[in-house]
């Protein structure tokens, strides 16, 4: 909300002149000031000048030579503008002045003629877009003289504050509301300033009102008002002013609007805008001649009814929208925008002035449906003062009479289904203390609330019956709302921040969040960098659709993490980063099992790797990542996640049969199998062409695992004490058919190794010369150990024999050289 400091101080002369102080006060009350702008500062040094004579330039067709009085003697100025006229007032930049664009005015000769200064257009002053000629200045009250600072002539001696008003405080979308909010003790009172040039304000005279119900009353006022939907428009005030002269507003009114960045239109529209900005009540003026039937109907629009609004757009209305209608049809979309047909124009003589109360919710719905937000809809959808309608209408009447002339015709109409009365909200001082933590006695509570317009109607023990002013009826309806006002006015910084004892809570630390931490620790330890991506992906990577996405191409929620990570890898490779090792822990989304169900979510971890297995080092050759690096990472992860899941046997990373692998998007080489054989994760190499990679790119390795949401409770892994007796090792070179999985052989060894077999490891794999065609040699090391004694060779030999015999029988495995 743009605020004029001068306007605030006209309402409350006791307010400080320093805009920074006003900004500080508003900020401390919860309304930060985003900007403080001294208006027209860039126009310093520019003045108002009168052109005395204009003659043709002797040597140039399009130039004119002017005698200009800029307050410091008459000087000659050469000017190219077509609209310069003798006797006119124009903005003038004397020699030495600097234009807003930064150009300094020097003394020059143009086609041989001396030119001392420059007459300016709107564009040159940064005040408008009209570059077609000089900016003609109007002097409606005869106050201009040559040399008058241009800032003053344009009413720009003001400071504009940009105040951030929260959506709960529609009352602050007005200068009156903000003046009230930033006044402190000793600042005196505030009141609407008199309208300049109005001797007998209607508001003072106490005009005649015709109060009616929702049904129209004919013949007692120049217009009848019918409220067909009292829920949406409970009250509608209307007044008729006849004999106005529509034209430009006087300087004071134009200045006031310009100061807050509003564009003056004509005196009638400007008057209603003034009241909107002053009191926060939107009003609308209709050309009475265009209102047919002498009656205003506030009703739902019918399906397909159309209206061309003031912005020149044809709008199609529907029955969810409220319309202000005459005998023929809609004249305005209620609370949003008026129609072009009944617009006030230069020909308008008689006005119908509307000042109404609309229910916020439907205004908001209409505004959204039409995609049309206006100053009026912005206020109505937040709530205007239901007790301030008459004040607003009278203020508008006063301003119109002052700036456009005319007379009020007949009684003003106040049609209402019900008229609001101030609400009373009980406030316990004990509750103030219970919530705020400090004790504030009842008289102090009352004193804190009073400046904001809250009155204590009644007080009984510690309960105050607080009467809420109309402009706060939207946000103050409960005791807690009043307590907030007490805290705010008291000042948040005046509360102590004393530490006190607290009780431990009943919510245990979330186990999955802990697992996420462990997973991150593991992958960071393995040298991966954590990535974060947004959850939005193209259709190929997700199945849950967003209705109103930011980007239409990526309007699905990811169903896996690896493909989006793949795109980040491609992005890195495109920037010349070759060794890329990324992982992400995040949520993936699956389609709802049945329409209307919540789409299920799961937490996954995924990684993507490319480049060297180890950083370059001068002591060793570079080694490119291979399947064993991937498998190692997956095994490490499986240990962490498996332990969390309460796996009795360690999870295994097993090769995926080719026919199974082909069924998936990125065919996996490995899957992570839990102890029940369920798949918990997959990993492999990204198929060629699946990612947009540079030509030099090598294999890209990926893995993805789902994290169990909660651990199996109560399982503590047993710990074996390290045996004190020595171990016995036996190395075996096993000749195995090539298509026999090493894991089968190792499983068999473990299975038959007896109780003392502690470890089985593979220390060499060989195929080629020296062993039969179609076989390979697995060199395995078996480690035997007993907890209570030293094993003798004989029993170890026996166990080895058992293993070898079994291998031979089951898998046709032979001992090499044996």
């Amino acid at each position, binding site marked *: 909300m743009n605020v004029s400091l001068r306007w605030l101080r006209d309402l409350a002369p006791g307010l400080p002149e320093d805009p920074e102080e006003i900004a500080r006060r508003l900020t*401390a*009350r*919860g309304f*930060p000031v985003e900007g403080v702008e001294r208006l027209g500062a860039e126009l310093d040094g520019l003045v108002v000048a009168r052109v005395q004579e204009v003659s043709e330039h002797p040597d140039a067709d399009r130039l004119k030579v002017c005698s200009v009085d800029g307050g410091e003697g008459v000087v000659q100025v050469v000017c190219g503008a077509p609209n310069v006229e003798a006797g006119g007032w124009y903005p003038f930049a004397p020699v030495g002045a600097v234009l807003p664009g930064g150009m300094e005015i020097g003394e020059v000769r143009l086609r041989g003629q001396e030119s001392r200064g420059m007459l300016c257009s709107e564009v040159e002053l940064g005040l408008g877009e009209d570059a077609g000629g000089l900016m003609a200045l109007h002097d409606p009250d005869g106050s201009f003289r040559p040399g008058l600072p241009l800032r003053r002539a344009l009413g720009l001696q003001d400071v504009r504050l940009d105040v951030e008003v929260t*959506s709960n405080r529609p009352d602050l979308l007005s200068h009156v509301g903000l003046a009230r909010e930033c006044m402190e003790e000793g600042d005196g009172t505030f009141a609407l300033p008199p309208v300049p040039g109005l001797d007998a304000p209607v508001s003072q005279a106490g005009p005649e009102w015709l109060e009616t119900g929702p049904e129209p009353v004919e013949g007692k006022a120049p217009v009848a008002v019918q409220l067909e939907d009292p829920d949406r428009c409970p009250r509608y005030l209307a007044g008729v002013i006849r004999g106005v002269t529509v034209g430009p507003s006087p300087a004071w009114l134009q200045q006031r609007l310009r100061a807050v960045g509003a564009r003056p239109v004509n005196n009638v529209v400007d008057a209603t805008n003034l009241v909107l900005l002053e009191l926060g009540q939107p009003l609308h003026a209709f050309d009475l001649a265009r209102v047919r039937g002498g009656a205003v109907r506030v009703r739902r629009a019918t399906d397909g009814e159309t209206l061309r609004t003031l912005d020149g757009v044809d709008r199609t209305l529907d029955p969810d929208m409220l319309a202000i209608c005459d005998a023929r049809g809609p004249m305005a979309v209620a609370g949003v925008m008026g129609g072009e047909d009944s617009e006030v124009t230069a020909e308008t003589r008689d006005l119908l002035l509307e000042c109404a109360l609309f229910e*916020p919710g439907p205004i*908001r719905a209409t505004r959204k449906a039409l995609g049309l937000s206006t100053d009026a809809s912005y206020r109505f959808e*937040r709530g205007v003062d239901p007790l301030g309608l008459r004040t607003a209408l009278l203020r508008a009447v006063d301003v119109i009479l002052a700036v456009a002339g005319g007379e009020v015709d007949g009684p003003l109409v106040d049609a209402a289904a019900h008229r609001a009365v101030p609400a009373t909200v009980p406030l316990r001082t004990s509750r103030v203390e219970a*919530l*705020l*933590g400090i004790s504030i006695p009842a008289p102090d509570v009352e004193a804190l609330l009073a400046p904001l317009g809250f009155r204590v109607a009644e007080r009984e023990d510690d309960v105050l019956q607080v009467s809420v002013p109309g402009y706060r009826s939207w946000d103050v309806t*409960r005791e*807690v709302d009043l307590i*907030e006002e007490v805290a*705010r006015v008291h000042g*948040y*910084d005046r*509360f*102590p*921040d004393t530490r*006190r004892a*607290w009780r431990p*809570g*009943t*919510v245990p*630390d*979330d186990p*999955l*969040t802990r697992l996420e931490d462990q997973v*991150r620790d593991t*992958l*960071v*330890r*393995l*040298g*991966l*960098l*954590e990535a*974060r*991506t*947004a*959850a939005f992906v193209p259709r190929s990577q997700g199945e849950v659709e*967003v*209705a*109103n*996405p*930011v980007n239409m191409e990526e309007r699905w929620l990811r169903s896996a993490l690896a493909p989006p990570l793949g795109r*980040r890898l491609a*992005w890195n490779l495109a920037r010349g*980063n070759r060794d890329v090792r*990324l992982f992400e822990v995040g*949520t993936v*989304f699956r389609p*709802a099992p049945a*329409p*209307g169900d919540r*789409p299920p*979510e799961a937490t996954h971890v995924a990684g993507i790797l490319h480049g060297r297995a180890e*950083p370059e080092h001068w*002591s060793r050759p570079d080694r490119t990542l291979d399947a064993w690096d991937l498998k190692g990472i997956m095994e490490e992860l499986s240990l962490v996640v498996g332990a969390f899941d309460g796996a009795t046997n360690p999870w295994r990373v097993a090769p995926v049969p080719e026919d199974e692998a082909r069924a998936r998007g990125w065919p996996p080489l490995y899957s992570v199998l839990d102890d029940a054989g369920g798949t918990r994760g997959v990993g492999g190499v990204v198929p060629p062409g699946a990612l947009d990679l540079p030509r030099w790119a090598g294999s890209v390795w990926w893995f993805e695992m789902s994290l169990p949401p909660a651990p199996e409770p109560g399982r503590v892994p047993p710990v074996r004490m390290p045996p004190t007796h020595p171990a016995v090792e036996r190395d075996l070179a096993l000749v195995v058919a090539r298509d026999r999985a090493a894991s089968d052989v190792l499983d068999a060894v473990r299975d038959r190794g007896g109780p003392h077999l502690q470890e089985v490891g593979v220390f060499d794999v060989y195929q080629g010369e020296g062993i039969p065609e179609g076989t390979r040699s697995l060199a395995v090391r078996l480690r035997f150990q007993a907890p209570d004694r030293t094993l003798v060779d004989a029993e170890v030999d026996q166990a080895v024999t058992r293993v070898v015999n079994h291998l031979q029988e089951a898998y046709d495995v032979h001992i090499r050289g044996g």
Partner: protein
Amino acid sequence: MSDAATLEGELEALEAQALEAVATADSESLEELRVRYLGRKEGRVSAILRGLGGLDPAARPRVGQAANRVKGSIAKALDARAQALAEADVRPSGHGDLSLPGRSGWRGARHPVTLVIDELCTLFGEMGFSRARGPEIETDWYNFEALNTPLDHPAADEQDTLYLADGTHLLRSHTSPVQVRVLQTHEPPIRVLAPGMVFRRDTWDATHAPAFAQLEGLVVDEGVTFVDLKATLAEFARRFWGPGTEVRFRPSFFPFTEPSAEVDVKRVRTIREPDGSTRTEEGDWLEIMGAGMVDPAVLEAAGIDSERYTGFAFGMGPARIAMLRHAITDIRSLYENDIRFLSQFGPS
């Protein structure tokens, strides 16, 4: 039986032979040499010593002395060579230049946003907060209505919400629905944090992302007041931003808290000048979180007696804090995942 002179000559020859072999031996052959010359069973010097008994008793001491000297000399040479080899083993290859770069594996790192979340959770954890989580797909009820935000109020607009095409669900626009879920399932006292991703209909730019992390905090118990809110959050701010940090609470508006506050911090750092004097440097006020007393309507919606229990809640943006902390000017750099950026957040 050899005579003494022959033996002495043999010993000298053995010594010369052994010392020559030892000088060029590697650690494996060194052990062989030790066995060959000094080994108890087969060692040649040992054999001579063993044969002393068969010598003329007059010659025995002289030969014995010589044999022991040679034994000592070879043993010393062996030890010296072993020592030299051991030293050479620990000195790296690479021409003995110890200034060459060391060998290490890849260095991983957590994402800067994760690091902030971790630190926030640790600090609040010290003050008794545990972590809670909730779904990212929510309903209007959890995201708005239970949080005292009627759908037809402009406040519901301020967080431009992303809806699913199913017409009934949305992507949560803040982590506050977790408040409601925790309150529904647990009895006070409650002290929880809810870190998580939230979603808004924001176009990517330097300060906006359609998905970003948020961290919510909630305390509900008997007798919790605005003073507790201030004490807890001011204590947190000083622990996170440094002991001299100034904390400011400003009124604000959130539908789900009342009274509501914005919390600003100003870092005040003491800088030591080269001449030993100190001066303090003040930063700007930084807006770091929103907070407030839980609105009674929120407690009631979750089935908590708002007369008996009060509480406070707060929320902040770890990405924003990461940006402030590392002077990152464009939020998009947190999502590009350029490894040259991410690797700076590892151990250093």
